[in-house]
């Protein structure tokens, strides 16, 4: 018993707690990313009537590990005229800013690293920083294609961050709190997808744009810009940039589940789960959350396999002329309805 008490005492130390939280988040995200790279290749291959990876391990499941080993052992190339410190730091900065928002996303009741009382705002604020890493990569490489990719990334993130934030405001008005846990708890009876369908639509489109996925993957459109902002990267740095991008996707989808799909709540099953005690309900709730995440991720991959890429002018136009007015309208309607109901 004494040992357990000592361990619990150590765990309550904020430094130890945050260290464990950081390790937990990075492990969770990395495992998901490894699985996602495999899932994406396999799924898109099936859509295009190919086999996809099927050599390493059962169903090619070990493919991500093989890829990782390949990327680690590759030669590390830095362009001669590159801005060296910026070029070297860019992937690390990108990784950092991709991981940071996950701190405030609850996976299950109580399973959250830090339940900030400004949760949503913190996530949006930190997520907006990841553009800096893309600009650093684009500028540091000293290559016109990377620069163009970086510029597109900035235009994209500047014009889609506004609708992204505006679409969340409807929910914040409903809940009356910025804390992620309280927002999820408010969806015990009805998910916000049904209460905020317009907000969800705007959020969905803006989130895809912020993730930089097809049809909005203009910063790295390979048919125009070679590979966009990460053209000059190779080996481990490239792997880190790729990791950051997938982590971005996982975090954005997790945010979507927490904000619009009721987090760990399921209509009937949640009542059963809440009657249990101990560590079992936490695991079950986390399981529900992850299943919901993967359903959305598969939809995103499906979109990627189906839709063509749009032009940059069209894209910026959609952001400013369609999404922002709709999001503003959503805020107006939401506040109006809430005032009338009161």
């Amino acid at each position, binding site marked *: 018993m004494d040992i357990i008490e000592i361990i619990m005492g150590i765990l309550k130390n904020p*430094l130890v707690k945050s260290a464990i939280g950081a390790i937990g988040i990075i492990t969770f995200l990395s495992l998901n990313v490894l699985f996602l790279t495999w899932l994406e290749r396999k799924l898109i291959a099936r859509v295009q009537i190919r086999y996809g990876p099927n050599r390493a391990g059962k169903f090619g499941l070990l493919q991500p590990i093989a890829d990782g080993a390949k990327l680690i052992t590759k030669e590390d190339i830095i362009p001669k005229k590159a*801005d060296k*410190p*910026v070029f070297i730091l860019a992937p690390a900065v990108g990784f950092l800013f991709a991981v940071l928002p996950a701190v405030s996303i609850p996976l299950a009741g109580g399973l959250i690293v830090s339940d*900030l*009382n*400004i949760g949503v*705002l*913190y996530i*949006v*604020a*930190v997520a*907006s*920083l990841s*553009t*800096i890493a893309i*600009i*650093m990569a*684009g*500028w540091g490489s*000293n290559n016109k294609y990377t*620069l163009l990719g*970086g*510029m597109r990334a*900035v*235009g994209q*993130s*500047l014009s889609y*961050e506004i609708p992204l934030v505006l679409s969340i405001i409807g929910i914040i008005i409903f809940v009356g709190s*910025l804390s992620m846990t309280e927002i999820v708890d408010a969806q015990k009876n009805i998910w916000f997808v049904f209460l905020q369908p317009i907000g969800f639509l705007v959020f969905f489109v803006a989130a895809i744009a912020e993730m930089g996925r097809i049809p909005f993957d203009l910063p790295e459109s390979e048919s125009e810009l070679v590979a966009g902002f990460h053209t000059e990267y190779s080996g481990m740095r490239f792997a880190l940039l790729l990791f950051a991008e997938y982590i971005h996707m996982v975090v954005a989808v997790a945010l979507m589940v927490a904000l619009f799909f009721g987090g760990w709540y399921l209509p009937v099953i949640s009542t059963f789960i809440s009657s249990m005690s101990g560590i079992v309900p936490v695991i079950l709730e986390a399981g529900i959350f992850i299943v919901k995440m993967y359903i959305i991720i598969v939809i995103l991959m499906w979109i990627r396999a189906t839709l063509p890429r749009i032009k940059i002018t069209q894209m910026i136009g959609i952001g400013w002329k369609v999404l922002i007015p709709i999001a503003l309208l959503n805020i107006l309607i939401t506040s109006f309805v809430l005032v009338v109901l009161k």
Partner: protein
Amino acid sequence: MNFELIFFFIISLITIFCAVSVIKAREIFHSALYLAMMFLGIASLFIMLNAEFLAAIQVLVYAGAVTILILFAIMFTKKERARAEKESLPKLTLVSIFLFNFIFFISQASWWNYVPDKIMVGSVRLIGSLLFDFQEGYVLPFEIISVVILAAMIGAVFVAIKKGVKKEIKRDATEGTKR
């Protein structure tokens, strides 16, 4: 010595270093990156004062939007290594004297000695009620500021549109004569 103090000194040192580097960096791109880091440092100081809302806004507006806009503008410029200019000693001393006087007189003022209390938890609510409360809040100044900012925005759009339209008209005219 408690952890908070140690962290405060670390963060302050980083922030000050970044602030100095903004001026001292050779390349303007590096300056902008240091600026972003400085904003993040200031945001961390806000967090240490329990002003989480202010910290988030600091990151969202300054580090997220302003710095990115600056970086965006830099991307349009040509990449050139700036030559290091030698600072002249008389100029430096003059500036230091002025700065010292400035700081000295401010530090004599009574409001300067005010040490900010740790703001209550839930400061979003506090700021909201301060801003929008009709009796005790600052509704009027807030709304006036927003109108001023809106006017500036409309003005900027107006200036930009006029130039673009003029160019288009000119181009159309020259193309017309060529035909």
